[in-house]
């Protein structure tokens, strides 16, 4: 696959593209390669899951694909933009306009209630106060946190906090949503809710959702699963032929 100057025109489904990406870290005198010459595409409107054991390089891949880290070699193109050409400020602005993040730790400000948590990044987008508030409420409703949006993190359960964190990422209406181990701090029921929400976002908003996890429960919900080991992608498959909601249907039928 060659360079894609305009993703939406050339290949309408590839929102995120990495070609020949490699990354290594030096710890002391030991140089360890985390990513070996990776080339992958992520399609819009899909929930892509990168799974693998810890230390396989999946978080590093996420950091590079999302523009939080730069690769040692290779190129990342997101929404037609070569991330390697952007300086720090431009990269921040790109993230502000186009990407959302959900982390394993919920990272919510203790002093703010759920609504304010979601509203905070929106105010930096240049939205007016009422518009930011409207969007924040809307995305809190979407993750089912509408009734609890006036509560602070200390008054919320882990699952609820993660839903607020998702709403915070979602309210920006990003084309790209990155999630790093979003369920590993949650129990089964809450994990299930979070997966469903992420899947729904990919479907209904056409968002490219890239999720990194070693949680086997997620596999059934992904549109595509990349299995990683030792900095290489071993397999790339679609878990079920039927629409991905079947995964959720199976769970709920039990």
């Amino acid at each position, binding site marked *: 696959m060659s360079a894609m100057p305009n993703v939406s025109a050339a290949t309408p489904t590839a929102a995120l593209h990495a070609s020949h990406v490699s990354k290594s870290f030096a710890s002391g005198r030991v140089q360890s390669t985390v990513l070996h010459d990776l080339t992958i595409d992520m399609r819009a409107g899909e929930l892509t899951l990168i799974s693998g054991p810890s230390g396989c390089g999946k*978080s*590093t891949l*996420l*950091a590079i694909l*999302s523009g*939080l*880290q730069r690769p040692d070699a290779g190129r990342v193109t997101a929404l037609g933009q070569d991330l390697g050409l952007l300086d720090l*400020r431009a990269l*921040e*602005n*790109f*993230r*502000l*306009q186009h*990407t*959302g*993040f959900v*982390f*394993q*730790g919920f*990272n*919510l*400000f*203790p*002093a*703010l209630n759920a609504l*304010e948590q979601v*509203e*905070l*990044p929106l*105010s*930096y987008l240049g939205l007016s*106060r009422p518009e930011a508030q409207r969007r924040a409420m809307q995305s809190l409703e979407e993750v089912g946190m509408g009734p609890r949006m006036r509560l*602070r993190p200390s008054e919320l359960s882990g699952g609820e906090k993660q839903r607020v964190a998702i709403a*915070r*990422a979602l309210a*920006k209406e990003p084309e790209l949503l990155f999630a*790093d*181990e979003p369920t590993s701090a949650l129990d089964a029921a809450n994990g299930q809710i979070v997966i469903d929400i992420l899947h729904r976002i990919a479907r209904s908003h056409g968002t490219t959702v890239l999720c*990194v996890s070693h949680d086997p429960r997620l596999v059934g919900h992904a549109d595509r699963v990349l299995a990683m080991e030792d900095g290489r992608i071993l397999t790339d498959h679609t878990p079920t032929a039927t629409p991905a909601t079947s995964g959720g249907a199976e769970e709920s039928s039990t």
Partner: protein
Amino acid sequence: MVALARKTLIYEWRRFLPAILAVGFAGLLQLLQAALVFGIFGSASVYITGSSADLWVGYPGTQSVNLGRPIDEGVQARLLMDPAVSRVEPFHWVDADWRGPRDTGGVSVFVSGIDPRPDGLMFSQVLPRELRELLDEPDAVIIDRADLKSLGVDVGDTAAINGHRVRVVGVSSGLRALGGVNIVASLDTARELDTDPTNVGRMTYFVASLRDPAQAPSIAKRLSGSASFGSYAVWTAREFARRSQMYWILDTGAGAGVLFLAGIVFLVGAVITSQTLIAAVIGSVREYATLNALGVGVQALRRVVLEQAFWVGALGLLGSAVMGLLALTLARSRNVPVAIHPITAVLCLSLTMVLAMVSGLAAMRSLRRADPASLLR
């Protein structure tokens, strides 16, 4: 805009309390030491501030009122010739040696020879009319109540100044001066006490009141220009009082001491404040990193930290203003010499705000730890 800085400050007030207290006490210390210095050294100019003259005329270059040298008595006529001058009064200053009835050894005193008439300019603010009248009696002197002990006398006692017998006819308050005990006598008595033969026909100062006191600076300038009757200089009362105070502040090293202490207070305050703010930033570093991942720029995050520092400073200042007011009121009621000019107060409090902002700048540096890539494990 969500008021992240303020909301965090309110919600996590315990975390910010040490910084607020540090700023508050730093401000309070700056205020009190300034008030004490100006209070103590303000008494160097009690001769001027306790009187109601508009102009002071003395030997050119005199740095402080207690360092006056005699000038020609003809200057009085020169002053009276000016239509802007309504009254002129001599002020005879004698540097003298006191021997009291009790065993106090020699005490260095300053005798202020003034015109004792009821509406006299000298010490009009600190000597009531009935006390002034007592000075008409030959060899009568008045001292400050607080100096009774160091002079070893009581009212009605006799003592010797420069070997000449005097009698203490009364006590007042607000006469205390720096450098030596201030003793008030009439001009005639002071002349008797002055043993220096070269001072005959000469006077230490002439003080004048003006028809329009607001014109004092320009009249002082005009009168200074004349060289008749030998050399003399004319200052406005305000200017001469300032000159005397500054002389004492600088001459005694008190000024340097104050600056040194102010520096120490600033340093200690900044260390505590910045450490507290740094701890607050580090406590929220994952949240800041998340905001940065979501595209909120480092500049915007720095503004949040700086805003926090500003509020810490503002709250601390409020505290120091309230505590300072209480402390100064208490000091006044206990006769501790304190004096603070509004400009000095504003200066002290501004310095404290600078302290808070410098601490904020220091805390801003720890935002570098807010690397969003570190959130991915």
